[in-house]
């Protein structure tokens, strides 16, 4: 890449790095691995920077690279995720901060128990704020699949969390 391209990439990287890291974290539940996935996505973007003519599609490209990397790694035998029956213990302590931390940890732990593809749908829809069509584009599937995966993902998340988070209780 020439100097101008490198400058543009650096600006995009600075603007989007933290958002991509957060998405990666919710996809894998671990900040170290999240950084690896985020870097992988940015490296893929850097290699194709000159070929990406529609700069408005950069976010979609990074998102797709990230989701693909996480799902691919979850399929590898030596990194295959294992579900456990117990939710991690909630941190002891009283007060609003403790509750907030406990809620966060519970959600992250619950997300890790959701199958990778359903988890990706949930993260894209509720963290990234994508609508069904955009999520389908990022995942390379149909909108109907996104809807069904969202429904199953929420169900799996509720089952994983139980009554830990009240907001996830189905409306009766």
């Amino acid at each position, binding site marked *: 890449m020439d100097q101008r391209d490198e400058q543009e990439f650096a600006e995009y990287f600075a603007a989007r790095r933290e958002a991509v890291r*957060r998405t990666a*974290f919710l996809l894998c539940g671990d900040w170290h691995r999240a950084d690896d996935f985020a870097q992988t996505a940015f490296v893929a973007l850097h290699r194709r920077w000159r070929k990406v003519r529609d700069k408005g599609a950069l976010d979609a490209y990074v998102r797709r690279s990230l989701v693909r990397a996480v799902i691919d790694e979850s399929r590898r035998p030596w990194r295959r995720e294992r579900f456990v029956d117990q939710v991690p213990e909630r941190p002891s302590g009283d007060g609003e901060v403790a509750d907030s931390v406990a809620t*966060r940890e519970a*959600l992250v732990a619950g997300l890790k128990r959701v199958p990778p593809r359903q988890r990706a749908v*949930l993260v894209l829809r509720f963290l990234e704020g994508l609508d069904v069509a955009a999520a389908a584009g990022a995942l390379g599937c149909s909108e109907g699949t996104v809807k069904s995966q969202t429904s199953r993902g929420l169900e799996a998340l509720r089952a994983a969390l139980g009554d830990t988070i009240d907001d*996830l209780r189905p409306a009766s």
Partner: protein
Amino acid sequence: MDEQRLAELFRDAARDAPPASFDVTGVRSASARATARRRSQVALGSAFAVVLVLGGIVATSVSPRSTSDTTAAGSAEGASSPNVSTFGVPELAPNEASPDRNGGLPPKSIPEDTPTQGGELSGSADRSTVGGAPEGCAEVDRELAVALADELPVARGLIPAPAAASCPPGSRGASYLLRDGGVTGTVSVVLTPPGELPPSFDEGTRSETASASGGRELHVLSRPEHGSAVVPLAEELPALAGRLAGRF
């Protein structure tokens, strides 16, 4: 369920991120490494493909030839050739690899059929001639060969060869490699056109000339072969030349 509340929970869960462990420099370095790795893989793949293609070409071009070579070698020795190894590589018999100059039989690779005049000699009789390729009598003249064999009973049944001499243009010739007792040598007969110079020949060769019909001259040459100092049929050459000249 309130999707807005759910989105807040997700955003809250991803809050308080630790400092990033990579920066744009690391991304550039990793990108360069990945690009270099990709290029080497492509180069390696291309080299492998080229090697495969070349190997295929060599295999397809060599296999049929080696088969035909084996067949040719086998047929030269007869139906059951003892000189073809089990690996299909033809082996030369000692007397084929280096013909016996001291009276051994003519090489077996000389064709059985006497070539007609003007026909190409496909044998491998390796007899040296003066000045390299002889001019004018580079091929065996069937008529002269038959006449010479008629006059030399010892030559009957042998394979004729081109005359061992450098002939002027328009000449015809033939020769036999003879073994008469302990004497081995080549006896040639050359018929030169009228007015042409006689053929030139190796040192040590004895020649006799007689006049043939039409002003032509018939030359009989006798050359001892390597290792032999005696000229074969030395005493009979004048009479032989005269008898042969009478036929032409």
